[in-house]
Protein backbone atom coordinates (compact mmCIF):
# COMPACT_ATOMS: atom_id res chain seq x y z
CA UNK A 1 0.00 0.00 0.00
CA UNK A 2 1.40 3.34 -1.09
CA UNK A 3 0.44 6.69 0.48
CA UNK A 4 1.80 10.22 0.51
CA UNK A 5 3.36 11.67 3.62
CA UNK A 6 1.23 14.43 5.13
CA UNK A 7 2.16 17.86 3.82
CA UNK A 8 3.82 16.52 0.69
CA UNK A 9 0.90 16.63 -1.74
CA UNK A 10 -2.15 18.82 -2.38
CA UNK A 11 -4.94 16.80 -4.00
CA UNK A 12 -6.60 19.97 -5.27
CA UNK A 13 -3.61 21.03 -7.36
CA UNK A 14 -2.56 17.49 -8.33
CA UNK A 15 -5.63 15.21 -8.25
CA UNK A 16 -4.10 12.69 -10.65
CA UNK A 17 -1.12 12.25 -8.35
CA UNK A 18 -3.44 11.71 -5.38
CA UNK A 19 -5.37 9.12 -7.38
CA UNK A 20 -2.15 7.26 -8.13
CA UNK A 21 -1.91 6.43 -4.41
CA UNK A 22 -3.80 3.82 -2.36
CA UNK A 23 -4.82 6.53 0.12
CA UNK A 24 -4.41 10.29 0.19
CA UNK A 25 -3.18 11.90 3.41
CA UNK A 26 -4.06 15.59 3.88
CA UNK A 27 -1.78 18.32 5.10
CA UNK A 28 -2.21 18.69 8.86
CA UNK A 29 -5.43 20.46 9.83
CA UNK A 30 -5.49 22.55 13.01
CA UNK A 31 -8.61 23.94 14.74
CA UNK A 32 -7.90 27.51 13.59
CA UNK A 33 -6.49 28.64 10.24
CA UNK A 34 -2.72 29.08 10.12
CA UNK A 35 -0.77 31.10 7.59
CA UNK A 36 2.39 29.25 8.48
CA UNK A 37 5.90 30.53 8.99
CA UNK A 38 7.45 33.49 7.15
CA UNK A 39 9.53 32.76 4.05
CA UNK A 40 12.15 31.48 3.31
CA UNK A 41 10.51 28.13 4.13
CA UNK A 42 12.53 25.52 2.27
CA UNK A 43 16.16 24.83 1.42
CA UNK A 44 18.03 21.97 -0.14
CA UNK A 45 20.94 20.33 1.66
CA UNK A 46 23.50 17.81 0.44
CA UNK A 47 21.48 14.93 1.93
CA UNK A 48 17.88 16.10 1.90
CA UNK A 49 15.89 19.26 2.40
CA UNK A 50 14.83 21.35 5.38
CA UNK A 51 11.40 22.94 5.58
CA UNK A 52 9.77 25.35 7.95
CA UNK A 53 6.24 25.61 6.58
CA UNK A 54 4.66 25.78 10.03
CA UNK A 55 1.41 23.85 9.46
CA UNK A 56 -0.13 26.35 7.05
CA UNK A 57 -3.76 25.21 6.65
CA UNK A 58 -7.29 26.63 6.29
CA UNK A 59 -8.43 25.54 9.77
CA UNK A 60 -10.93 22.84 10.67
CA UNK A 61 -14.13 24.74 9.83
CA UNK A 62 -13.10 25.63 6.27
CA UNK A 63 -11.56 22.19 5.84
CA UNK A 64 -14.85 20.48 6.73
CA UNK A 65 -16.95 22.85 4.62
CA UNK A 66 -14.78 23.26 1.51
CA UNK A 67 -12.13 20.57 1.40
CA UNK A 68 -13.71 17.35 2.62
CA UNK A 69 -16.50 17.36 -0.02
CA UNK A 70 -13.93 17.84 -2.81
CA UNK A 71 -11.54 15.26 -1.37
CA UNK A 72 -14.42 12.77 -1.12
CA UNK A 73 -14.73 12.95 -4.90
CA UNK A 74 -11.15 11.82 -5.46
CA UNK A 75 -12.15 8.20 -5.19
CA UNK A 76 -9.26 7.15 -2.95
CA UNK A 77 -9.43 6.52 0.81
CA UNK A 78 -8.98 9.77 2.69
CA UNK A 79 -6.66 10.07 5.67
CA UNK A 80 -6.85 13.36 7.56
CA UNK A 81 -3.79 14.55 9.45
CA UNK A 82 -4.91 16.21 12.69
CA UNK A 83 -2.84 18.77 14.58
CA UNK A 84 -3.42 20.89 17.64
CA UNK A 85 -1.88 22.63 20.60
CA UNK A 86 -3.61 20.68 23.39
CA UNK A 87 -5.21 17.26 23.82
CA UNK A 88 -8.63 18.95 23.86
CA UNK A 89 -7.97 20.53 20.48
CA UNK A 90 -6.95 17.22 18.93
CA UNK A 91 -9.98 15.49 20.43
CA UNK A 92 -12.41 18.19 19.26
CA UNK A 93 -11.08 17.88 15.70
CA UNK A 94 -11.37 14.09 15.82
CA UNK A 95 -14.96 14.37 17.03
CA UNK A 96 -15.84 16.73 14.17
CA UNK A 97 -14.16 14.49 11.60
CA UNK A 98 -15.75 11.35 13.07
CA UNK A 99 -19.08 12.38 11.54
CA UNK A 100 -17.66 12.50 8.00
CA UNK A 101 -18.09 9.24 6.15
CA UNK A 102 -15.55 10.31 3.50
CA UNK A 103 -12.79 10.30 6.11
CA UNK A 104 -11.42 6.78 6.50
CA UNK A 105 -8.55 7.29 8.92
CA UNK A 106 -7.23 9.96 11.27
CA UNK A 107 -3.50 10.48 11.60
CA UNK A 108 -2.47 12.44 14.69
CA UNK A 109 0.50 14.67 13.93
CA UNK A 110 2.29 14.43 17.28
CA UNK A 111 5.67 15.48 15.99
CA UNK A 112 5.79 18.63 13.86
CA UNK A 113 9.23 20.16 14.41
CA UNK A 114 8.14 23.61 13.21
CA UNK A 115 5.57 24.56 15.83
CA UNK A 116 5.38 24.50 19.60
CA UNK A 117 4.01 21.18 20.74
CA UNK A 118 1.02 20.46 22.93
CA UNK A 119 1.92 20.24 26.61
CA UNK A 120 0.32 16.81 27.03
CA UNK A 121 2.13 13.59 26.22
CA UNK A 122 1.49 11.76 22.98
CA UNK A 123 -0.31 9.02 24.90
CA UNK A 124 -2.63 11.53 26.60
CA UNK A 125 -3.52 13.05 23.22
CA UNK A 126 -4.18 9.61 21.71
CA UNK A 127 -6.39 8.68 24.67
CA UNK A 128 -8.42 11.89 24.33
CA UNK A 129 -8.87 11.28 20.59
CA UNK A 130 -9.75 7.63 21.16
CA UNK A 131 -12.68 8.77 23.25
CA UNK A 132 -13.80 11.13 20.48
CA UNK A 133 -13.84 8.84 17.45
CA UNK A 134 -14.31 5.27 16.32
CA UNK A 135 -12.29 5.84 13.16
CA UNK A 136 -8.86 4.23 12.91
CA UNK A 137 -6.27 6.42 14.67
CA UNK A 138 -2.65 6.50 13.55
CA UNK A 139 -0.06 8.23 15.73
CA UNK A 140 2.61 9.99 13.70
CA UNK A 141 5.83 10.02 15.67
CA UNK A 142 9.29 11.44 15.15
CA UNK A 143 12.36 9.28 15.66
CA UNK A 144 13.40 10.95 18.89
CA UNK A 145 13.57 9.73 22.46
CA UNK A 146 12.73 6.17 23.48
CA UNK A 147 10.59 5.19 20.52
CA UNK A 148 9.80 1.68 21.77
CA UNK A 149 8.38 3.05 25.00
CA UNK A 150 6.45 5.77 23.16
CA UNK A 151 5.03 3.23 20.69
CA UNK A 152 3.83 1.01 23.55
CA UNK A 153 2.32 4.02 25.34
CA UNK A 154 0.29 5.19 22.32
CA UNK A 155 -0.76 1.58 21.63
CA UNK A 156 -2.02 1.26 25.21
CA UNK A 157 -3.83 4.61 24.80
CA UNK A 158 -5.82 3.24 21.89
CA UNK A 159 -3.88 3.97 18.70
CA UNK A 160 -4.68 1.63 15.81
CA UNK A 161 -1.42 2.21 13.99
CA UNK A 162 1.81 4.16 13.79
CA UNK A 163 3.13 6.53 11.12
CA UNK A 164 6.91 6.58 11.24
CA UNK A 165 8.68 8.96 10.89
CA UNK A 166 8.21 12.72 10.84
CA UNK A 167 11.07 15.06 9.94
CA UNK A 168 13.97 15.67 12.30
CA UNK A 169 15.19 19.12 13.28
CA UNK A 170 17.87 20.25 10.87
CA UNK A 171 19.67 23.38 9.77
CA UNK A 172 21.62 24.34 6.70
CA UNK A 173 23.69 27.41 5.86
CA UNK A 174 23.71 29.43 2.67
CA UNK A 175 27.01 28.92 0.86
CA UNK A 176 27.63 32.63 0.33
CA UNK A 177 26.14 34.40 3.33
CA UNK A 178 26.85 31.65 5.88
CA UNK A 179 23.42 32.34 7.32
CA UNK A 180 20.53 29.86 7.55
CA UNK A 181 18.34 30.39 4.48
CA UNK A 182 15.22 29.47 6.47
CA UNK A 183 13.61 32.48 8.16
CA UNK A 184 13.24 30.45 11.36
CA UNK A 185 16.74 29.04 11.11
CA UNK A 186 15.91 25.49 12.11
CA UNK A 187 13.49 23.38 10.08
CA UNK A 188 12.45 19.77 9.53
CA UNK A 189 14.91 17.57 7.67
CA UNK A 190 13.46 15.17 5.11
CA UNK A 191 14.63 13.21 2.10
CA UNK A 192 17.38 10.61 1.67
CA UNK A 193 19.05 11.49 5.00
CA UNK A 194 16.03 10.07 6.81
CA UNK A 195 16.09 6.58 5.30
CA UNK A 196 18.31 4.90 7.91
CA UNK A 197 16.36 6.80 10.59
CA UNK A 198 12.99 5.56 9.35
CA UNK A 199 14.30 2.02 8.97
CA UNK A 200 15.53 2.04 12.56
CA UNK A 201 12.28 3.54 13.86
CA UNK A 202 10.12 0.95 12.10
CA UNK A 203 12.48 -1.84 13.20
CA UNK A 204 12.21 -0.79 16.85
CA UNK A 205 8.44 -0.26 16.83
CA UNK A 206 7.78 -3.55 15.05
CA UNK A 207 9.49 -5.27 17.97
CA UNK A 208 7.78 -3.12 20.59
CA UNK A 209 4.15 -3.34 19.40
CA UNK A 210 1.84 -5.29 17.13
CA UNK A 211 0.42 -2.10 15.60
CA UNK A 212 0.42 -1.77 11.82
CA UNK A 213 2.99 0.76 10.65
CA UNK A 214 3.11 3.23 7.76
CA UNK A 215 6.81 3.66 7.08
CA UNK A 216 8.12 6.88 5.58
CA UNK A 217 11.29 8.92 5.46
CA UNK A 218 13.72 8.91 2.56
CA UNK A 219 11.75 6.62 0.28
CA UNK A 220 12.69 7.40 -3.32
CA UNK A 221 12.71 3.96 -4.96
CA UNK A 222 11.12 0.54 -4.93
CA UNK A 223 14.18 -0.74 -3.11
CA UNK A 224 13.62 1.81 -0.34
CA UNK A 225 9.99 0.71 -0.06
CA UNK A 226 11.01 -2.95 0.10
CA UNK A 227 13.43 -2.23 2.94
CA UNK A 228 10.72 -0.47 4.96
CA UNK A 229 8.41 -3.44 4.47
CA UNK A 230 11.21 -5.80 5.47
CA UNK A 231 11.79 -4.01 8.78
CA UNK A 232 8.08 -4.15 9.57
CA UNK A 233 6.07 -1.47 7.76
CA UNK A 234 2.70 -2.59 6.39
CA UNK A 235 2.44 0.41 4.09
CA UNK A 236 4.87 2.97 2.73
CA UNK A 237 4.45 6.71 2.23
CA UNK A 238 6.26 8.99 -0.18
CA UNK A 239 7.32 12.44 0.92
CA UNK A 240 10.10 14.59 -0.45
CA UNK A 241 10.42 12.47 -3.61
CA UNK A 242 6.99 13.77 -4.65
CA UNK A 243 8.40 17.30 -4.81
CA UNK A 244 11.02 16.22 -7.33
CA UNK A 245 8.73 13.93 -9.30
CA UNK A 246 4.93 13.91 -9.15
CA UNK A 247 4.98 10.63 -11.04
CA UNK A 248 7.05 8.91 -8.34
CA UNK A 249 4.14 6.72 -7.11
CA UNK A 250 3.86 4.80 -10.40
CA UNK A 251 7.62 4.42 -10.65
CA UNK A 252 8.06 3.28 -7.03
CA UNK A 253 5.18 0.83 -7.45
CA UNK A 254 6.74 -0.73 -10.55
CA UNK A 255 10.18 -0.87 -8.95
CA UNK A 256 8.74 -2.44 -5.78
CA UNK A 257 6.99 -5.14 -7.80
CA UNK A 258 10.30 -5.99 -9.46
CA UNK A 259 12.14 -5.99 -6.10
CA UNK A 260 9.52 -8.25 -4.49
CA UNK A 261 9.74 -10.67 -7.37
CA UNK A 262 13.55 -10.64 -7.33
CA UNK A 263 13.51 -11.51 -3.62
CA UNK A 264 10.94 -14.26 -4.02
CA UNK A 265 7.99 -12.52 -2.37
CA UNK A 266 4.64 -13.27 -4.00
CA UNK A 267 2.97 -10.20 -2.48
CA UNK A 268 4.00 -7.09 -0.47
CA UNK A 269 2.47 -8.62 2.68
CA UNK A 270 4.94 -11.50 2.46
CA UNK A 271 7.85 -9.07 2.79
CA UNK A 272 6.50 -7.35 5.93
CA UNK A 273 8.90 -8.03 8.78
CA UNK A 274 11.10 -10.30 6.66
CA UNK A 275 14.28 -8.71 7.99
CA UNK A 276 13.32 -9.68 11.56
CA UNK A 277 12.60 -13.28 10.51
CA UNK A 278 15.95 -13.52 8.76
CA UNK A 279 17.82 -12.24 11.81
CA UNK A 280 15.99 -14.83 13.92
CA UNK A 281 16.69 -17.60 11.42
CA UNK A 282 20.38 -16.71 11.34
CA UNK A 283 20.62 -16.82 15.15
CA UNK A 284 19.03 -20.26 15.53
Amino acid sequence: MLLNASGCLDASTAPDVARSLDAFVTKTVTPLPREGNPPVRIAETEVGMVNSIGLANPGLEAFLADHVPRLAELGVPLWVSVGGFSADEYAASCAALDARAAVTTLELNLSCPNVDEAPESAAQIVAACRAATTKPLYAKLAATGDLAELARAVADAGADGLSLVNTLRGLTLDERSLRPPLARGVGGLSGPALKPVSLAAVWVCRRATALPIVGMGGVASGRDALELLAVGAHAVALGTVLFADPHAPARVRAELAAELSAHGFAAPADAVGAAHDRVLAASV
Partner: protein
Amino acid sequence: MPELRRERLRVLAVEQVGPYSLLRVSRGMLTPGRPGQFFMLSPPGRLLPRPMSLCLAPPGELAFLIDAVGPGTRALCALAPGNTLDVLGPLGNGFRVDVRRPLLVGGGIGVAPLPYLAEALGRPPALLGFRSEHHAQAAALVPNAEVVLEPTYVTEPLAPVARRHDVLACGPEPMLAAVRELAPGAQLAWEAPMACGYGACYGCAVELDGSWKRLCVEGPVLVAA
Protein backbone atom coordinates in the same frame (compact mmCIF):
# COMPACT_ATOMS: atom_id res chain seq x y z
CA MET B 1 -6.05 21.21 -13.20
CA PRO B 2 -3.96 20.52 -16.30
CA GLU B 3 -2.08 17.27 -16.48
CA LEU B 4 1.43 17.37 -14.99
CA ARG B 5 3.83 16.47 -17.76
CA ARG B 6 7.39 15.48 -16.96
CA GLU B 7 9.85 14.26 -19.50
CA ARG B 8 13.56 13.56 -19.86
CA LEU B 9 14.85 16.06 -22.41
CA ARG B 10 18.12 16.23 -24.31
CA VAL B 11 20.43 19.22 -24.02
CA LEU B 12 21.06 20.82 -27.41
CA ALA B 13 23.35 23.67 -26.38
CA VAL B 14 24.46 25.81 -23.46
CA GLU B 15 25.32 29.32 -24.68
CA GLN B 16 26.99 32.05 -22.63
CA VAL B 17 25.08 35.32 -22.50
CA GLY B 18 27.24 37.61 -20.38
CA PRO B 19 27.36 35.96 -16.93
CA TYR B 20 24.24 33.90 -17.68
CA SER B 21 23.78 30.58 -19.52
CA LEU B 22 21.10 29.94 -22.12
CA LEU B 23 20.23 26.25 -21.72
CA ARG B 24 18.59 24.93 -24.86
CA VAL B 25 16.86 21.55 -24.70
CA SER B 26 14.80 19.49 -27.13
CA ARG B 27 11.11 20.02 -26.47
CA GLY B 28 10.00 16.39 -26.55
CA MET B 29 6.26 16.16 -25.99
CA LEU B 30 6.20 19.17 -23.64
CA THR B 31 4.46 22.35 -24.73
CA PRO B 32 6.01 25.79 -24.15
CA GLY B 33 2.94 27.20 -22.43
CA ARG B 34 2.26 30.89 -21.97
CA PRO B 35 4.93 33.54 -21.37
CA GLY B 36 5.69 33.79 -17.66
CA GLN B 37 4.86 30.16 -16.98
CA PHE B 38 7.75 28.07 -15.69
CA PHE B 39 9.26 24.60 -15.72
CA MET B 40 10.93 22.57 -12.96
CA LEU B 41 14.39 21.53 -14.18
CA SER B 42 16.12 18.67 -12.33
CA PRO B 43 19.86 19.37 -12.10
CA PRO B 44 22.00 16.22 -12.21
CA GLY B 45 23.06 15.13 -8.73
CA ARG B 46 20.64 17.36 -6.83
CA LEU B 47 17.61 16.33 -4.80
CA LEU B 48 15.22 19.08 -5.86
CA PRO B 49 14.36 20.59 -9.23
CA ARG B 50 14.75 24.33 -9.87
CA PRO B 51 12.00 26.61 -11.24
CA MET B 52 12.89 28.40 -14.48
CA SER B 53 10.61 30.52 -16.61
CA LEU B 54 10.73 29.87 -20.32
CA CYS B 55 13.01 32.34 -22.13
CA LEU B 56 12.58 31.30 -25.74
CA ALA B 57 10.58 28.67 -27.63
CA PRO B 58 12.28 28.05 -30.98
CA PRO B 59 10.62 25.26 -33.00
CA GLY B 60 11.21 21.93 -31.25
CA GLU B 61 13.11 23.58 -28.40
CA LEU B 62 12.72 25.08 -24.95
CA ALA B 63 15.35 27.58 -23.81
CA PHE B 64 16.02 28.80 -20.28
CA LEU B 65 18.23 31.70 -19.18
CA ILE B 66 20.00 30.68 -15.96
CA ASP B 67 22.14 32.57 -13.46
CA ALA B 68 24.51 30.15 -11.71
CA VAL B 69 24.00 31.32 -8.13
CA GLY B 70 24.07 28.02 -6.21
CA PRO B 71 24.69 24.29 -6.52
CA GLY B 72 21.52 23.57 -8.51
CA THR B 73 21.84 26.35 -11.06
CA ARG B 74 25.59 25.63 -11.36
CA ALA B 75 24.79 21.99 -12.20
CA LEU B 76 22.27 23.13 -14.83
CA CYS B 77 24.79 25.53 -16.40
CA ALA B 78 27.42 22.75 -16.43
CA LEU B 79 25.27 20.52 -18.66
CA ALA B 80 26.70 19.70 -22.07
CA PRO B 81 25.05 18.93 -25.40
CA GLY B 82 23.85 15.32 -25.39
CA ASN B 83 23.24 15.27 -21.61
CA THR B 84 19.67 14.73 -20.45
CA LEU B 85 17.61 16.21 -17.65
CA ASP B 86 14.06 15.79 -16.33
CA VAL B 87 11.74 18.70 -16.98
CA LEU B 88 8.23 19.23 -15.56
CA GLY B 89 5.86 21.80 -16.98
CA PRO B 90 4.64 24.24 -18.07
CA LEU B 91 3.44 25.31 -14.61
CA GLY B 92 1.75 28.26 -12.93
CA ASN B 93 -0.01 31.30 -14.30
CA GLY B 94 1.79 33.33 -16.92
CA PHE B 95 1.32 36.87 -18.20
CA ARG B 96 -1.99 37.92 -19.72
CA VAL B 97 -1.17 39.06 -23.23
CA ASP B 98 -4.50 40.76 -23.95
CA VAL B 99 -3.03 44.18 -23.20
CA ARG B 100 -3.25 47.25 -25.41
CA ARG B 101 -0.07 49.22 -24.74
CA PRO B 102 2.47 46.75 -23.34
CA LEU B 103 5.75 47.88 -21.81
CA LEU B 104 8.14 45.20 -20.57
CA VAL B 105 10.31 45.93 -17.54
CA GLY B 106 13.13 43.64 -16.45
CA GLY B 107 15.96 43.66 -13.95
CA GLY B 108 18.99 41.34 -13.98
CA ILE B 109 18.12 37.67 -14.46
CA GLY B 110 14.51 38.86 -14.40
CA VAL B 111 14.86 39.38 -18.15
CA ALA B 112 14.53 35.57 -18.46
CA PRO B 113 10.81 35.39 -19.40
CA LEU B 114 10.82 38.61 -21.48
CA PRO B 115 12.11 37.33 -24.86
CA TYR B 116 9.25 34.81 -25.14
CA LEU B 117 6.81 37.41 -23.83
CA ALA B 118 8.07 39.99 -26.36
CA GLU B 119 7.36 37.55 -29.20
CA ALA B 120 3.82 36.94 -27.96
CA LEU B 121 3.16 40.69 -27.71
CA GLY B 122 4.61 41.67 -31.09
CA ARG B 123 7.95 43.05 -29.87
CA PRO B 124 6.76 45.91 -27.63
CA PRO B 125 9.18 48.42 -26.06
CA ALA B 126 11.19 47.20 -23.05
CA LEU B 127 13.13 48.82 -20.20
CA LEU B 128 15.92 46.68 -18.77
CA GLY B 129 18.22 47.33 -15.84
CA PHE B 130 21.50 45.54 -15.15
CA ARG B 131 24.35 45.60 -12.66
CA SER B 132 27.05 45.94 -15.34
CA GLU B 133 27.80 45.98 -19.07
CA HIS B 134 28.66 42.29 -18.76
CA HIS B 135 25.22 41.44 -17.34
CA ALA B 136 23.58 43.71 -19.91
CA GLN B 137 24.62 41.36 -22.72
CA ALA B 138 21.34 39.57 -21.92
CA ALA B 139 19.51 42.60 -23.32
CA ALA B 140 20.35 41.30 -26.81
CA LEU B 141 17.67 38.62 -26.26
CA VAL B 142 14.93 41.26 -25.87
CA PRO B 143 13.87 43.31 -28.92
CA ASN B 144 13.34 47.09 -28.69
CA ALA B 145 15.04 47.32 -25.29
CA GLU B 146 16.33 50.46 -23.59
CA VAL B 147 19.06 49.53 -21.13
CA VAL B 148 20.13 51.27 -17.93
CA LEU B 149 23.05 50.28 -15.73
CA GLU B 150 23.43 50.70 -11.98
CA PRO B 151 23.43 53.10 -10.24
CA THR B 152 20.51 53.99 -12.53
CA TYR B 153 17.44 51.81 -11.97
CA VAL B 154 14.70 50.99 -14.48
CA THR B 155 12.27 52.96 -12.37
CA GLU B 156 13.93 56.18 -13.58
CA PRO B 157 12.94 55.85 -17.27
CA LEU B 158 9.74 54.04 -16.21
CA ALA B 159 8.38 56.78 -13.94
CA PRO B 160 7.35 59.31 -16.64
CA VAL B 161 5.71 56.71 -18.91
CA ALA B 162 4.38 54.07 -16.49
CA ARG B 163 0.79 55.23 -16.42
CA ARG B 164 0.53 55.38 -20.19
CA HIS B 165 1.35 51.67 -20.50
CA ASP B 166 0.31 48.18 -19.48
CA VAL B 167 3.42 47.20 -17.54
CA LEU B 168 4.62 43.58 -17.46
CA ALA B 169 7.66 43.14 -15.23
CA CYS B 170 10.07 40.57 -13.85
CA GLY B 171 13.03 41.24 -11.60
CA PRO B 172 14.26 41.34 -8.02
CA GLU B 173 11.70 42.00 -5.29
CA PRO B 174 12.72 45.62 -4.57
CA MET B 175 12.37 46.40 -8.28
CA LEU B 176 8.91 44.82 -8.43
CA ALA B 177 7.85 46.72 -5.33
CA ALA B 178 9.02 49.99 -6.94
CA VAL B 179 7.30 49.14 -10.24
CA ARG B 180 4.10 48.43 -8.36
CA GLU B 181 4.22 51.95 -6.88
CA LEU B 182 4.64 53.52 -10.31
CA ALA B 183 2.25 51.27 -12.21
CA PRO B 184 -0.75 50.02 -10.23
CA GLY B 185 -2.28 47.15 -12.18
CA ALA B 186 1.10 46.01 -13.53
CA GLN B 187 1.57 42.29 -14.07
CA LEU B 188 4.52 41.26 -11.94
CA ALA B 189 6.40 37.94 -12.11
CA TRP B 190 7.64 37.04 -8.63
CA GLU B 191 10.21 34.51 -7.50
CA ALA B 192 10.57 32.31 -4.41
CA PRO B 193 12.43 29.13 -3.46
CA MET B 194 10.25 26.24 -4.59
CA ALA B 195 10.62 22.51 -4.01
CA CYS B 196 7.87 21.14 -6.24
CA GLY B 197 6.34 23.77 -8.55
CA TYR B 198 2.86 22.23 -8.44
CA GLY B 199 1.37 23.24 -5.10
CA ALA B 200 2.54 20.34 -2.95
CA CYS B 201 5.25 21.79 -0.72
CA TYR B 202 3.94 25.23 0.35
CA GLY B 203 7.54 26.42 0.22
CA CYS B 204 6.90 29.31 -2.16
CA ALA B 205 4.15 31.03 -0.18
CA VAL B 206 4.54 34.81 -0.11
CA GLU B 207 2.44 37.44 1.60
CA LEU B 208 1.02 39.84 -0.93
CA ASP B 209 -1.62 42.44 -0.15
CA GLY B 210 -2.44 40.83 3.18
CA SER B 211 -2.94 37.26 2.03
CA TRP B 212 -0.63 34.31 1.50
CA LYS B 213 -0.28 32.88 -1.97
CA ARG B 214 1.58 29.89 -3.31
CA LEU B 215 3.51 31.47 -6.14
CA CYS B 216 3.63 28.22 -8.10
CA VAL B 217 -0.16 27.89 -8.19
CA GLU B 218 -1.52 31.44 -7.99
CA GLY B 219 1.54 33.03 -9.61
CA PRO B 220 4.28 33.46 -10.47
CA VAL B 221 2.64 36.35 -12.36
CA LEU B 222 0.35 38.39 -10.11
CA VAL B 223 -1.42 41.65 -10.78
CA ALA B 224 -0.33 44.46 -8.48
CA ALA B 225 -3.12 45.86 -6.36
